[in-house]
């Protein structure tokens, strides 16, 4: 299948070629390739940042692990070819650029590289942008006051326990 342009940083070889060079460039090894099942996400914490790593048909992708809406665990979301749906209220995040579909918000996108069967992650420089509440400026992208807004962008996520 064609490689989306936005995955170019993952797939091209202008990144350091050896594990030691990757570490020197600021990457951290977070596990083996097979530690993340295809079309699922897993979380890691690198230099204090919670990062969700996804394994996609075109390669790996990494974004902030917390949904900008209500802090939902994006690594537990439903994953499509290049999109994840938050399990809490169905917000959809484009894995190629971190934008939240239809919301004007954005989560941080991080560098992720596969070398010799291992996954290396380097936290990106940019923070997420919580478009609806840019004034918070706390860099988490989390947005408490808006947590109650209707967020049913996806399927009904009826999760009542009983």
């Amino acid at each position, binding site marked *: 299948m064609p490689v989306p342009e936005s995955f170019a940083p993952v797939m091209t070889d202008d990144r350091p070629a050896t594990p030691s060079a990757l570490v020197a460039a600021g990457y951290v090894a977070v*596990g083996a390739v097979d530690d*993340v099942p295809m079309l*699922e996400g897993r979380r*890691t914490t690198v230099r204090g940042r919670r990062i969700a790593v996804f394994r996609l048909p075109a390669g790996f992708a990494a974004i902030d692990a917390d949904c900008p809406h209500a*802090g939902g665990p994006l690594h537990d979301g*439903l994953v499509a*070819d290049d999109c994840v*749906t938050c399990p809490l209220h169905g917000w959809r995040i484009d894995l190629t650029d971190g934008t939240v579909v239809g919301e004007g918000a954005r989560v941080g996108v991080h560098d992720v590289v596969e070398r010799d069967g291992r*996954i290396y992650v380097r936290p990106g420089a940019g923070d997420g942008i919580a478009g609806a509440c840019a004034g918070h400026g706390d860099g988490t992208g989390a947005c408490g006051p808006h947590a109650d807004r209707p967020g049913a962008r996806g399927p009904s996520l009826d999760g009542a326990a*009983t």
Partner: protein
Amino acid sequence: MSHPATSTTDVLVVGGGIAGQSVCEALRDRDADLRVTMACEEPRLPFDRVSLSHLLVDGKDPEELRLRPDGWYDDHAVETVVGDPIVDLDPDAGVATLASGGAIAFAHAVLCTGSTPLLPRLPGVELPGVIPFRGPEDCRTIRRAAAAGTDVAVIGGGLLGLEAAYGVASQGARATVVHLSDRLMERQLDDPAAELLEPALRGLGVTVLLERQTRLILGPDRARGLRFADGEQLDCGLVVVAIGIRARTDLAASAGLECGRGIVVDDAMVTSHPRILAVGECAEHRGTVYGIVAPIHEQARVAAETLVVLDAAGPGMEVDHGSAGPAPGVPAEPDVGEITGGRTLYSGSILSAKLKVMGVDVVSIGDGDVPPPPGAPAADGAATSAAVHDRAAGVYRKVVVRDGRLAGAILVGDVRGHELLLDGVNNAIEVPDPLGLLADASQASPADLPDGAQVCNCNGVCKGEIVAAIEEHDLGTTQEVVARTRAGAGCGSCKPTVTEILKVVRGGRVDEATYLCPCRKQTREDLAAVTREQSLESVSELSAACGAGRDCGACKPGLAYLVSEVNDNRHREERHARFINDRVHGNIQNDGTFSVVPRMRGGVTTPSELRRIADVAERFDVPCVKVTGGQRIDLLGIQKEDLPAVWEALDMPSGHAYAKSVRTVKTCVGEQFCRFGLGDSMAAGIELEEMIEGLYTPHKVKLAVSGCPRNCAESLIKDIGLVAIEGGWEVSIGGAGAGTVRQTRLLARVDTKDEALALAIVFLQYYREHGEYLERTAPFVDRIGLDVIREHVLDPERAAALMERFRIAKAACDPDPWRERYAPATANQFSDLDGDATPIGPPDRAATLPLTRVRPTTPEAPDARA
């Protein structure tokens, strides 16, 4: 569609507008054999003039507004003459002469000559650049001028004028509405209602000049502006005149028919000559000329009946058509019979309009008790009005009561309940409490309408007819209902009501665009067919085959259910297609933790189980222990990585309280202990739960078994409810205890507990096979229909087949997914990747959630967020 020099017809319809078309259709509804000829003056077949403003706003092709396609006229044997006006009419001879020189001999004729725009006698009104707002040509001129940035002045602040101004503004040009009166739409609206239109007008950049009398249109070569009575001037490049209409009576008058403001007709729509009828804007009935569309259709139906009666009587026969009762809105006097011979006659129409003015919903019904124009006499007697007026919200709602009866209403910004009010005005209902009526109307939904209430005022379709059509023909979409009943096929303003009624009849679910994969517009049936045909066994294969689930992925749990159901659970399970709850077998909570509900069949437990649960809660510092609505115990706030350890410590199987699956069977104590018990509800509930647990379903399925009709287990609001009765059991289905509360509907009474359990299972399997994903049983039963369900689940042969497929699926399902604590289904099923040696904690919920966690186990803990 050619015509000979002289042709002969039974009924000649003169005029190809909405009225002419409506007469043809009403006639064909009643008689297939009468020869019908429609003569259209304009060079086109009838189009929907009511929707003319659409041409202005979106530049639609006039062809799209055609009322009927060419083929309709052939199919219905309606001869048409297009672009050849009738210039002379001889009622006694029964001959109409065409401009081309041809002639049509007729037995009866219906004049549907409509109206012409009223043009004021102003100096300069004949200049180029002064146009009415009447036909597609006018729309083109207005659009062209607006697109070129020309300033447009619209004379007339009634409905038509505002529509013209809206069209201009929507093209980005400046429009000024010049209105003689002191408020817009003064015939329909009072001051507070008219005021609410102003913010919308301002928002669109439309200027309104009230109380301006135009004296002359400035020239000299073409329209350059307006001068008002006070000497003020307005520059503009185009003048649109929309001050009203005048009935076209010239042909009728020259034929010697009695004309007033229109062609005078009686209650049978017959003019002063017995073989000539008139319908629509050209006709004057009881002193009124109607300029809106709904009365036209009513008149057309009456005219069609009259024509059928006249035809049956034979040529030259005099027919006493009788007279209709009092006008709608006037209470009928008792004991005054109507000599109508079972026919419908016309007694007039309540003027009502539902429209969008500048994007604001406006409804005007009957007598709005609006101030009369200066000089005009005030209405008789004092009206009682009740109104709510919310300037900030842009809402105004008013009901008008005269002599204790509902006479009219004005609704702006919030038009809920307008159907109820129109029905009330038509029937002149008594209103002892106007404020109460106003309150009731705001709560009203189409579900509250009486069956006789007219929903489509254009085509005269009542709610009862719509409901009957939906049920009889199993209609699922608004489009189908419109096509079959014609409700909503007129001006279309009632289509939302039609949809609402459809939803009520279908139990909240309308089939329009029920896609399992909305991104690829694929329905459950489409995808099930692909799965079967290609013998697909996994979501990945299905995605590869047709793309479903690849775009946003949100439908993958639905695809996973579909694949599992089609394969009787012998599919290839893929966890990436499952919601997180089904990947880790717990219910995700608002902070990303999970809840753990162990199996407790029938809500029956033991001291040792309770002791274990208590120990686990303490050992894992479980934040909250709660009894659920389904009679289970819920441990809330468990971290994902702790799930396997918690399950191991509990040493109890999963209670499946997280999946779209069979959930709980709730029970009452029943005959084991209860002095009223008629059946062993606890044992039956436990047995039923054991038979079905672990099965996935289109949506969650909650069940209950009650030991007597006191129904203490709430069986009658469950998806499947069993109730023990004297001598047997009742099995009922399709209840709902949340959202919209619904009582179950009785499926059947059976003699024994085993029969009851078997029937419950057969229905469950039927729902598994036919339910849309995320469709609960209440809407499912409404959609499929109880009768159809009974045909399947009560038929021994079909029931046996359903039971067999159920057994296969049940045998292949996982009765306890919590055993994955020993053999994880995926890598790191419950854990994170490697990372910082000391990972930071979970997201700070204090910053992201408004809720305070209930921690009854540590009530003394200080609240850090205080």
